[in-house]
C-alpha cells in the first residue's frame, strides 16, 4: 500500500534569526485516509504541505510515497513527477481556461474519449455537471473550489493536499462543502492531507488530526481523542473553548466548588490545581444545591453561553436550549444556580501561572 511517510523532516528559512518552519516532523498518512494538520498561522503547516508537494526541499529527513523516496538528502523528485493534487486556498483556477479544461489540465491525453469521460464523471461527482464551458469568473466561490477539487483528483494523485480550502467561503457553504469533499475523496479512494486552522474543520473531516506548533507536531490522534485528552493547555485551547475551575488536589481526586471530582494524573497530587473543562461539561442541574451566581448570558442560537461566578472563579458554561422555551424564562443574570461537572476534566494544570 502506498502510505505517505514523513520522517524527521526539518526545514528552516534564512533570516535573522532563521525561521525554523519544521523541526523533526514525523507523520504517516495511511493509504486512503484523511489527515488534518491543525495549527495557527505561521506554525509551519503550509511549509509541511509544500515540502510534500515538492516546492520546498527539506533540510533534513525523508519523505516516502509508498516505497518511493521523493525527498531526502540524496534525492529530490520534482513536483511534476510526484503525482500530487493540490487544492489551494482560493482563486487558483486557471482564468484563461474553462471548467472542463481546468479539470483536464493534469490529464495526459486531453482530447481522448477517456479524458472527456473522466472530466464528465468528476464534474458529476462535485455537482457541476453541465458547467464544462463556464469560465472561472462565472462561478461562485464554492463552485470554484469544487472545480479545483475535481482538477486535483483528475489524475488519481498519490496524495491530495488541501491548503485551508474553505477559509475564503462563507460559513454556511463551508459545512456543506466539507461533507461533500469528504464523500468525494472517500469515493475516489484518495489519500488526503488537509491543512487548517479551524478545529471544527479538522475534526469533522479527518480520520487523524495532527496538531502543529512552532514547527513541531505536538499531538496526533483522532479528533475526539485530542478534544478530550489534549497533551497541554495550548493544544486544549487550539481544539476548542475551555473554562477553568480551581481545586485542591487530594490523591486522585480534587476538591472543587463543584464537589469532589476524579482526575487522571500520574501519581497522587496535593496542593492547589486548576481543572480545565470544556464549557459543555459544566452542566446546569436543578437537583444540585445552588453553588454559583449567573453574571452574564450570551444567546448563541442552539445554546446559551453563561458566565457563572463560582467561588473564586468565573466559569463559562454552554447549556443547550433545545426545548424551545425562551432562555430568559429559565435563567436571568443574578440567579443562583446549581452546577455540576460532567465527566473528567480534559486537563489538570499544576503550574498555576495565569496564562
Amino acid at each position: 500500500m502506498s502510505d505517505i511517510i514523513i520522517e524527521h523532516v526539518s526545514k528552516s528559512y534564512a533570516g535573522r534569526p532563521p525561521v525554523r518552519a519544521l523541526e523533526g516532523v514525523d507523520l504517516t498518512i495511511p493509504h486512503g485516509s484523511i489527515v488534518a494538520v491543525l495549527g495557527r498561522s505561521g506554525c509551519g503547516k503550509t511549509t509541511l504541505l509544500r515540502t510534500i508537494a515538492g516546492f520546498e526541499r527539506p533540510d533534513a529527513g525523508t519523505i516516502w510515497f509508498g516505497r518511493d523516496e521523493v525527498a531526502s538528502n540524496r534525492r529530490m523528485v520534482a513536483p511534476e513527477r510526484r503525482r500530487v493534487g493540490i487544492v489551494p486556498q482560493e482563486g487558483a483556477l486557471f482564468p484563461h481556461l474553462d471548467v472542463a479544461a481546468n479539470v483536464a489540465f493534469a490529464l495526459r491525453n486531453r482530447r481522448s474519449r477517456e479524458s472527456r469521460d473522466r472530466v464528465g464523471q468528476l464534474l458529476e461527482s462535485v455537482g457541476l455537471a453541465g458547467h464544462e464551458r463556464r469560465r472561472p469568473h462565472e462561478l461562485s466561490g464554492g463552485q470554484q473550489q469544487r472545480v479545483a477539487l475535481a482538477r486535483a483528483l483528475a489524475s488519481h494523485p498519490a496524495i491530495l493536499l488541501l491548503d485551508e480550502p474553505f477559509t475564503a467561503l462563507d460559513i454556511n457553504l463551508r459545512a456543506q462543502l466539507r461533507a461533500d469533499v469528504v464523500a468525494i475523496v472517500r469515493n475516489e479512494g484518495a489519500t488526503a492531507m488537509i491543512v487548517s486552522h479551524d478545529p471544527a474543520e479538522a475534526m469533522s473531516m479527518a480520520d487523524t488530526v495532527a496538531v502543529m506548533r512552532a514547527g513541531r507536531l505536538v499531538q496526533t490522534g483522532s479528533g475526539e481523542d485530542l478534544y478530550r485528552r489534549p497533551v497541554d493547555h495550548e493544544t486544549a485551547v487550539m481544539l476548542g473553548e475551555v473554562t477553568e475551575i480551581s481545586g485542591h488536589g487530594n490523591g486522585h481526586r480534587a476538591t472543587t466548588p463543584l464537589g469532589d471530582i476524579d482526575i487522571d494524573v500520574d501519581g497522587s497530587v496535593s496542593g492547589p490545581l486548576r481543572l480545565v473543562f470544556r464549557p459543555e461539561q459544566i452542566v446546569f442541574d436543578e437537583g444540585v444545591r445552588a453553588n454559583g451566581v449567573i453574571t452574564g448570558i450570551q444567546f448563541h442560537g442552539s445554546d446559551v453561553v453563561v458566565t457563572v461566578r463560582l467561588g473564586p472563579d468565573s466559569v463559562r458554561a454552554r447549556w443547550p436550549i433545545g426545548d424551545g422555551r425562551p432562555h430568559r424564562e429559565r435563567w436571568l443574570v443574578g440567579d443562583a444556580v446549581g452546577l455540576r461537572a460532567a465527566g473528567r476534566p480534559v486537563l489538570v494544570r499544576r503550574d498555576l501561572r495565569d496564562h
Partner: protein
Amino acid sequence: MLRRVRRAHPPLALLAGGGLASVLVLVPITYIVVRATDRGWQTFADTVWRQRTLELLVRSVGLAVVVTTASVVIGVAAAWLVTSSDLPGRRFWRVALAMPLALPSYIAAWAWIGWRPDLVGFDGAAIVLTSISYPYVYLPVLGALGRADPALADVARSCGRGPWWVFVRVTLRQVRIAAVGGALLVMLYVLSEFAAVSIMRYESLTKVIYSSYRASFDRTPAAALGCVLVAATMVPLWFAVRFSGSGRVARVGAGSTRTAATVELRRLRWPITGCVAALLGFSLGVPAWNLVRWTGRGSSTTTWNDVAEATATTLGLAAAAAAAAVIIAIPIGLLSARYAGRCARAVTALAYAGHALPGIVVALSLVFFGIRYANAIYQRTPMLVGAYVVIFLSLAIGAIHGSIAQAPPILDEVARSSGRRQVTVWFSVTLRLAAPGIGTAAALVFIATSKELPATLLLRPIGTDTLATQLWSRTDAVNYAAAAPYACVLVLIACIPTALLTRASVTRS
C-alpha cells in the same frame, strides 16, 4: 499569514537570459569609459577640464532644472485638477493631457521653430521640452492620487484644517514618491535629449557630442564628453534614490475605498479651465496646427516614394526592436517576479541604468565597439536593434515584470503538480496570464523606437532612412515644409498605440 521567502534557485535558463541582458547593457557603459581614456588619462582630463566643457554642462543642467521644475508644477497641478476638483470636462482632460507623450520632441521643436523662428535657443528649448515632458510627472501622480486614501484628507478636514493645508500637508505628501519618480524621468530625459535642442539650436552636451563626433576624426573628445554626460545623469538618480524616502503612503488597514469628495473651484473654475485648455493648446495645438499648415505647403514637393520607404523601414526596425526587447525582458521579468533576490535585483538595476544612459552615449560607444570588435555587424541592422534594446529594455521589463507578478504563483505550483515541467508551465500558464503586459511592453518599445533619433543617426546602415532621420535632415536644412509628411506619418504611427495605452492606464488608475 507568514509568507515564505522564496529561496529556490532560479533555473539556469533564466540566469543565462539575465546574464545576456546584463552583458548587453554593460558593454556600452564600460566601453565609453575605455574609449575616452584610450589615449591616456591626460588627454581625457584635458578634454574634461576645459572651460568649454563646464559651460556645456551648466547649459545642459540649467535646461534640465528649468524643464523639470516646470513639469512638476504643471504635472502635479493638472493631475490634481482632473482627479480632485470640479473642473468641467474632467474625463476628457484626463486622457487629453497625457497625449503629448506621443509627440516626438523633434516634431514639437520643428512645429515651434516653424511657427516662431525667434524662439531659437534656451527659451524655445525649455518651452518645447516642458510642453512634451510634463506627462512624465502627470501620469504617475494621477495614479498616486487614484490610489491615495481619501479618508486621510477627510479626517484632516474634520480636525479643523482648511483645504489649502490639506492639499499641502496630505495630498502632496501622498503623491510625493510618484512626483519624484516622474521628475527623475524628466531630468534624465532632458539631459539626454538630443533632437529638440539641436533643432532649437541650443548648444547642450548632447548636441556638441554629436557634432564633435561628426566633425573630426579624433573621437576621444566625443567619448570624454559622453562620460561627463553619464556622470551628470547619475546625480539626479542619486538624489531620487536618496530623497524619495520610504515613508508609508499606501492605505494601512482594510476598509472599502471611496471616491474623494471633489474640491469646488468656485470663481476660479472657468479661468482654470482656460489655463488647462491653453496648456493643451501649447503642447498639442501648436504641433497639430503646424503639421496641417506645413503639410499643405509641402505636399507638392514630397517624394512619396521616400516617405513610403522610410515608413516601412521605421515599422520594420520598431517591430524588430520590440520583439527583441520582449524576448530579452521575459527571462528578466520571470527572474525578478518569481525568484526575487540579489541576482534579479542586479539585472533589473542594470537594465534601468541602460535607460538612464543617453541614447547618444549608447550609440557612440556601440560605434567604437563595432569598429574595433564587431565589424561584421557595424552599421548593420542587428547592431542598431541591439542599441534600441539597450536603451529601451527597462520599458519592457517594467511592463512584463508587473504582469507576471500579478499572475498568482500558486497557479504555477498547481500546474507543476499536474505533471508539467517548469518551462512548459511558463509558456502554458505564466506567460499566457501575463500576455496583456507583454503586449504593453511590445507597444512601449515599438513607440519609443519609432521616435528614436540619435542612435539611429549614428548606427543606421548606410542608405537606410527612418521617418525620424528624414525629418531631422530636413529640419537641419531649414526645409520645414519638406519635413511635414514625415512628421505626419510618425505622429500617426506613435499616436494610435499611445492612445490605447494611456486609456488603459487611466482606466486602471
